[in-house]
């Protein structure tokens, strides 16, 4: 109350017209400075050094034109990185979104058990990827791990999980889906709850049955959220680093090396900053292109209420 009374003193503070015009800029100054310094500037700088031979050991970088990019595209290692990243992202995006939608439709109906299940599924999302990576590394251990012991009990031959070039990417995708699906489900549950009850009642009166209701009503009405999640999950997949660094270090034989791991390795282990930055620019271009494609191809099909 004292505060409010103090605030009522007439003519106090910075209410003047002249200062008011500048006030929003002053208020935004720290935020804009932060974004300029840690978003815009690094992105421009990234592009610039990608055209140089800058390294940690060489203090005087010189311009090398497009040679970093030429080297990237000619390198079998980088092509493998692109392949790994795309496979991992495709598995992650398709797997996590379809599972999230399935779980959301199932668990959004009221019920104590369903509420508890939602919380349980969501829990891995708020736990550090360090812990998630380490416990799954132990569960997926080909010799002593619990997963292979369970498979054995079901009469299924053991799976090599992270130790084989063919199974490592699907295994990584599985772990990431486990971590993220709860968050995606939660967003879809919220979207489902926003659908007015009358819409379903009208459909019922018109005699619509299960699958028709899902494809004609539910799916179109959550499509804005799905498009948003498509963008979010694709970005999430393409920026993956933690589980790779902790679980596989890109192995076996580079079969799980992805973009950010590649950039990290070349910048901090081999000190080739320019070359690593060119990889970063390729990743930025890829993410931007995918987001643009999503909005152009699907944006029109999305149904906004």
């Amino acid at each position, binding site marked *: 109350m004292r505060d409010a009374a103090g605030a009522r003193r007439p003519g*106090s503070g*910075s209410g003047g017209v002249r200062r008011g015009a500048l006030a929003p800029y002053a208020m935004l100054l720290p935020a804009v400075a932060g974004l300029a310094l840690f978003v815009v500037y690094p992105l421009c700088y990234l592009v610039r050094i990608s055209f140089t031979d800058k390294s940690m050991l060489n203090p005087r970088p010189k311009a090398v034109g497009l040679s970093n990019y030429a080297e990237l595209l000619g390198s079998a290692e980088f092509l493998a990185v692109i392949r790994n990243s795309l496979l991992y992202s495709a598995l992650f995006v398709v797997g996590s979104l379809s599972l999230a939608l399935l779980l959301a439709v199932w668990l959004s109906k009221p019920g104590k058990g369903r509420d508890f*299940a939602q919380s349980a599924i969501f829990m891995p999302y708020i736990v*550090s990827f360090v812990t998630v990576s380490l416990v799954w590394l132990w569960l997926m251990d080909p010799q002593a791990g*619990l997963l292979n012991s369970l498979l054995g009990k079901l009469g299924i031959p053991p799976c090599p999980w992270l130790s084989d070039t063919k199974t490592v990417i699907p295994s990584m995708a599985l772990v990431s889906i486990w971590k993220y699906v709860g968050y995606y489900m939660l967003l879809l549950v919220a979207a489902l709850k926003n659908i007015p009850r009358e819409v379903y009642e009208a459909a019922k009166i018109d005699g619509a049955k299960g699958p028709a209701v899902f494809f004609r009503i539910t799916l179109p009405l959550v499509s804005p959220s799905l498009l948003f999640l498509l963008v979010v999950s694709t970005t999430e997949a393409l920026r993956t*680093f933690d589980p790779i660094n902790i679980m596989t270090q890109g192995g076996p034989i580079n079969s799980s090396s992805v973009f950010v791991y590649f950039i990290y390795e070349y910048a901090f282990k081999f000190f080739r*900053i320019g070359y690593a930055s060119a990889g970063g620019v390729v990743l930025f271009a890829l993410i931007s292109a995918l987001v643009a494609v999503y909005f152009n191809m699907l944006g029109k099909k999305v149904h906004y209420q």
Partner: protein
Amino acid sequence: MKRLLSLAVRAAKAVSLVAVIAIFIFPFFWILSNSLKTYEETLVFPPRILPAKAMLGNYLAALSRMPFARYLFNSLVVNALVLASQFLVIVPAAYAFAMYRFKGKGLLFTLVLFGFMLPQQLTFVPIYLLFGRLRLLNSYASLVLPFAASSFGIFLLRQYFMGIPAEIIEAGYLDGVSHRQSMMYIMIPMAKSALASIALISFITHWNDYFWPLVMTNTVKVRTLPLGVAALRVTDGTTEWNVLMAANMLLILPIIATFFVAHRQIKEALVHSGIK
């Protein structure tokens, strides 16, 4: 017959619900169970679900095998500084976006959204070089400053400010309240729950963060707990999984506790951030 069938369907649904819950809870139980086993027990195949005798020795081993107090202290300092700097930056920014009309507003807001979309895994190399030139590598500043202008926070708080009824704010102006007073004594108290949400998300994000401190620091002096825990795993030798899992329990306990206390608020904050 029909009743029997519906009973079977209900049983199947209940079983699948339990199975789904188990898939997501079991790894947490596995961390706990292994953190209580002896080293020999972790090597038994097939693995035992429960330890023969629960022992807390692994926790003591985890504490003594890394400078735990130092890591914990660093984690707390970084989280507190991130939170403080975020509030100083995002509150006035969100207020400006919500309450003023000015030239360049659209452009500046696009900048905020761009910051929201651009992952820091793209810009870490240039930021590393920047901090190197400023002699700020291996400092708390390198772990705090890049996160002060939180796009997520500005976005969420602006949304919330815009939802405050215009009459309340106008009544304040008619009474001669200045913008600054309006922000401090009307808007901030009314946006308490949004600020709490932002604080929760910020804590979860930075308590868990592994990538950023890994890149910006290389000394125990400023490194945070997730790096300490990850370093307990030896890649070339035998990992003592029981000790490692005990360390992980210490890492996730604060998060799990927060979740139990505020799970509704955490979920709501994350859902609001995802929906326009």
